[in-house]
């Protein structure tokens, strides 16, 4: 706000110092009015989220540091015992490793596929609307049901994918060692659940990127073209910086959604076979809810939080600085 610049700054200084401003009481300055307006606008969202997420989050932190069970949620404080106990269990390490592989791998794939698709969709061509509608469906189908559809498509006996591949002589017949058991062979199982996550998620990445790409004013691109920039130069020096915020936010949200989502693994393999697809959310669910050890379950599911928190803060701050 150019107009209130200098006055605003001195008013802010006065507020920071805590002293009184000679000219106007600080609460009547435009800055203060702006703050009041701003915080009032923020209030509904902040209140809603703090009451319904913040407070339960604090409760879950408490759970993670107690020996609570489902039948006894007010239990004794045990400090970091649950986290230490988790680290002793081999199942936990397996779940941690799988979670990281899953999230990072799927994230990279979604980013790449989403970017490519967004570029393609940016071009005008006949049938674009129809194509867009079709491509968006994986994302709009309720996840519980679309995953069940994939379960059927990956079935070890009746898989339509295997049927097709086998008819094309790309794999062996049913019963031979060349018949992939998508959800049964260790690395294949993890790859399959990752694939379903990517299948659901790449339309989302594409849309977010499309939003970013279309917000790049064509004049800027034209100017770059006029300046003789090649496609790659245009892409990396002009477009990427402009869409970086949206790209980044989309990726960050998607990463966070993926990290806490247990539906895909739960419905396809429930972490099996032998932990090949076990991820932290499914382990936490099996320990915390199905076995009733609430405290330990909370510790498992919040385990990544202390790692992600500083990471996210740093990245978000960098993003802000880039914009200003």
């Amino acid at each position, binding site marked *: 706000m150019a107009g209130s610049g200098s006055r605003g700054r001195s008013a802010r200084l006065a507020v920071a110092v805590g002293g009184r401003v000679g000219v106007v009481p600080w609460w009547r300055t435009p800055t203060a009015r702006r703050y009041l307006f701003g915080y009032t606008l923020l209030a509904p969202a902040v209140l809603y989220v703090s009451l319904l997420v913040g407070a339960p989050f604090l409760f879950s932190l408490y759970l993670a540091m107690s020996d609570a069970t*489902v*039948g006894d949620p007010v239990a004794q404080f045990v400090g970091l015992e649950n986290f230490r106990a988790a680290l002793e269990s081999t199942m936990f390490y397996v779940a941690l490793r799988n979670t990281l592989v899953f999230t990072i791998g799927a994230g990279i794939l979604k980013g790449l596929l989403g970017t490519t698709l967004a570029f393609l969709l940016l071009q005008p061509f006949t049938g674009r609307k129809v194509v867009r509608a079709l491509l968006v469906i994986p994302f709009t189908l309720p996840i519980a049901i679309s995953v069940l559809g994939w379960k059927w498509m990956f079935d070890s006996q009746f898989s339509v994918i295997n049927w097709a591949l086998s008819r094309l002589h790309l794999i062996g017949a049913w*019963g031979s060692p060349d018949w992939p058991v998508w959800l049964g062979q260790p690395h294949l199982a993890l790859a399959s659940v990752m694939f379903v996550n990517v299948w659901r998620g790449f339309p989302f990445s594409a849309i977010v990127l499309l939003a970013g790409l279309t917000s790049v004013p064509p004049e800027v691109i034209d100017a770059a073209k006029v300046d003789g920039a090649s496609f790659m130069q245009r892409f990396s020096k002009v477009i990427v910086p402009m869409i970086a915020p949206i790209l980044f936010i989309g990726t960050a949200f998607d990463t966070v959604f993926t990290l806490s989502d247990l539906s895909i693994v739960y419905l396809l393999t429930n972490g099996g076979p032998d932990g090949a697809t076990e991820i932290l959310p499914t382990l936490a669910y099996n320990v915390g809810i199905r*076995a009733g050890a*609430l405290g330990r379950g909370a510790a498992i599911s919040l385990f990544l939080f202390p790692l992600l928190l500083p990471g996210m803060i740093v990245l978000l701050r960098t993003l802000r600085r880039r914009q200003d």
Partner: protein
Amino acid sequence: MSDSETAPTDHAPVSRRGFLGVTGAGVAGASLLDMLAARQAPAQLKGTSLRILTWSHFIPAYDAWLDDFAKKWGDQNGVRVRIDHIPHLELPARFASEFAAGAGHDLMQMNGQIFTGQYYRHLMDLTDTADTLEKKYGKWMESSKSAGQVQGRWYAIPDFYIAIPMLWRKDLFDSVGVSNPQTWEDFRKAARLLKPKGHPTGMQFSHCNDANHNWRALLYSFGAKETDPSGQNIELDSKETREALRFAKAMFDEGMTAEVFSWDDASDNRYLASGVACWIHDAISAFRTTEDTNPAVFKNTYMLPEAAGPGGLRWNVGEPVIWAAWKFSKNPQGAKDFVVAIVDAQKEAMLASRGYNMPFLRDHYKKPMPGLGNDAKLAVLQEQDKVTAFFGYPGPMSPPAQEVLTTFLIPDMFTRVARGGPIEDVMKLFIGEMRRVYAKHKTG
């Protein structure tokens, strides 16, 4: 396929705040008995409502019967009954949320995953009901007590358990000369001979419910034990366990395909119904599905309560289904009465379940048992209680045993060995995890 169709659940539209809250607290046991004997609706129950949570039974006809039974009971007693069905694997989440909310159903069913030990401080003491039923119908099955009792008091009433027998194809077995399979060795031999002919067998090596029960059946039949009878000490590290693991690996190599690593609870049913499997180790629901979808295969499918291990032991690991009621239930009397009514109607229930439900009370085993006694193939199940154990055997179904169940330690142990892992290392790893689980429950 009439039986496999979804049984429409008939709910009277219920408004959120439409319940009357009359409770029938404090009815003395004696007067309850009198009233039951006289089959009159106790005055306290009239005008109340009862909310029941159960699982979605694998035999839809049973749910149709149950919903109808509940309605009739409700009409007879002036109680508005509502039954909600959810998949059994989702019951634990529902319990947790109802307990946290301090409100929910009056009566609920636990299936396979036993939470009596976790919630007993908040469950109604049902000892008087249990004693009443015992007086009426003979002794409770000894092994059922750990599902319902904590420190000698009953907090849950066992309703029925699910048997998981051997379902085998007589025509295929006859063709390779194994005409009367009785032992695990027999079944292994049959699979070895039939796999090259396109009829392998399969048992799940994955994270599913059936895997938990199948491999425990093998372990117990080989003489291995999960814990000692007190449930405090783990006794899985034994010669018998090693034998069972070796056997499982051999059986996998000879008689199964790699598909079994991706199987879920329904996969073996499909294997049998599609005509491929030479035998499976599965509940009667598979038998019924095959009956409905592949009569030719069904004609040749026979049942064995359980296969015997090398020492002659037979242990079938069943899934207990029990009733419990929250202390905060708004209709404790209604809950108790309904449980008694259901057990009173056990014979009808067994019939409606097409042989799936196995009772817990002695007298219900009098022959001929409904649904089983008159069926040539199912008649063998009338001795099922003699070979039935539950998870944690011979220890109780305690919270640590439950955690070992829900984290799939035993199926994983077998999976790793089947994949070629060295038995000693694998056992050390998984039994170590088991010890950790038990230790945490001791301190917790």
